[in-house]
């Protein structure tokens, strides 16, 4: 077990109002497993990743990575964001070297590791390019290389392909599977797209509407590379979709009944 989350609870306090983002959330991820986290908007997916990454504190519960409580000081996980989050003043290579730099790896070592991971994501030709010279897909490749260069045990990805066009998105999904196969990292991947989850995951965890907890864990046993048009693929897809639809409905119903504007107008 590389990630073990038990009874996680997270309450945000904003202007004296409490928002229970997560309550009784459990998750277990095995070594080298590819898990997709799916759920209605606002159910706490990003919050789960941020707590595992040590970017956010938990209210209560247990979060173990490789058997140790996460401490915000020295994370052992890499994270890839939807907004790429590249440093615009650094070249691709310098971006990839960032984690090594703050860990005081000597220059030669940094350069070698950066070259290796830029090569892995297929960007050796763009080492000296700056983010503004790269397309969205290329930017996300740099971000993946940057996260991997730190040699983390786990790669957390928060809707990493959410802002890419459909074609680039499909390409990046295949690329990610190739990189995953080459590195055997554990991947926890948040997405809004059922299609993407079924294409990528060993297992799909569907979350309930807020406060989020695990509703269902669905193993995807289809062999890779997966064919999106095959009946087996479509069958898994519909199953996940129906689970998700119920939660969407619940979220929508609650939103309507709790919305202050609606109350005021009534």
């Amino acid at each position, binding site marked *: 077990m590389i990630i073990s989350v038990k009874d996680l609870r997270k309450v945000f306090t904003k202007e004296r109002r409490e928002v229970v983002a997560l309550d009784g959330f459990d998750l277990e991820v095995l070594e080298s497993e590819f898990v997709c986290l799916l759920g209605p908007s606002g159910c706490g997916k990003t919050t789960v990743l941020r707590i595992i990454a040590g970017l956010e504190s938990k209210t209560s519960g247990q979060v173990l990575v490789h058997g140790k409580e996460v401490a915000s000081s020295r994370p052992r996980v890499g*994270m890839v964001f939807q907004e790429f989050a590249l440093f615009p003043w650094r070249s691709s290579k310098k971006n990839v070297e960032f984690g090594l730099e*703050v860990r005081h790896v000597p220059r030669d070592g940094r350069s070698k590791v950066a070259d290796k991971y830029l090569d892995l994501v297929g960007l050796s030709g763009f080492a000296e390019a700056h983010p503004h010279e790269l397309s969205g897909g290329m930017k996300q490749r740099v*971000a993946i290389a*940057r996260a991997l260069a730190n040699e983390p045990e786990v790669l957390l990805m928060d809707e990493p392909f959410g802002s890419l066009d459909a074609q680039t998105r499909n390409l990046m999904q295949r690329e990610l599977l190739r990189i995953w196969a080459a590195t055997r990292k554990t991947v926890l991947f948040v997405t809004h797209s059922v299609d993407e989850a079924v294409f990528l995951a060993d297992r799909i965890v569907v979350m309930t509407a807020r406060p989020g907890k695990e509703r269902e864990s669905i193993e995807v046993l289809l062999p890779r590379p997966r064919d999106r048009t095959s009946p087996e693929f479509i069958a898994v897809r519909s199953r996940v979709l129906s689970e998700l639809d119920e939660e969407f409905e619940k979220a929508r119903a609650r939103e309507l009944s709790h919305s202050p504007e609606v109350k005021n107008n009534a």
Partner: protein
Amino acid sequence: MNAILKWFKKMPRSQWKLILLVASILLFIGVWYAVSWWTELRDPVQGSLVPPPDEVASSFYWLLSNKDRATGIYLFQHMFTSLERVFLGFALAFALALPSGLLMGRSWVAEGLARPIVEIFRPIPPLAWAPAFLIIFKIFWGPVAVVFLGVFFPILFNVMLGARSVDRTLIDAARTLGARRSDVFTKVVLPYTVPYLMTGVTVGLGIGWMCIVAAEFVSAEGGGLGYFILANSDFGYYPEMYAGMVLIGILSVLTTGLAGLFEREVYKRMGMD
């Protein structure tokens, strides 16, 4: 006639701009001559209060190799005095405003502590301090202190704004990559703030040149171009006075231009051009 018109129409925008530049300068010199003649016509006994451009130019040329009549030293000595003051005031302000701005932008404790002090000083124009600074810091450092105040606030506020608007996800990304607080400060916040810093520097330099002249008016016998202008005006040496003004204009344009070049170089190094 038609051929000339056609030729004009085919000219690229850059050539038009050059022609407009020359026309603009000629227009300026023409108006200068006109004003000069007009003041002479109005009062032929006293002579022109606004010397024509050629007289200012020849006086400028003369001042390059002669001690001036009003202050008894060379024009370039005054120039170096002013340059030295602007440089010192600017350097001190930069060295203090940059770290203060970064701290105030990133830490609410630092801002809460420093903001009230800043707000006490800010509404008082730097020039209002000139007499006080002259008494405290004497004739050389008094004007330096005025320049310091003039440059300090634009840099402080711009850096603060930049440090405050750092993209949160960049900081999150840095932290997941193992950056500690100090790394985030030097490797994320500082580079992110550079464009804001450059704005502060450009604005600050302009204000610095305004401050130095006025402060040197007050600081008499401390030397400097402000003093040179005032002394020549007192003696009625108007061509010299205007020559001093022109020199300040040139210096201000040169230093701002230098800052612009520096800015472009920094952006190029940072890959943000």
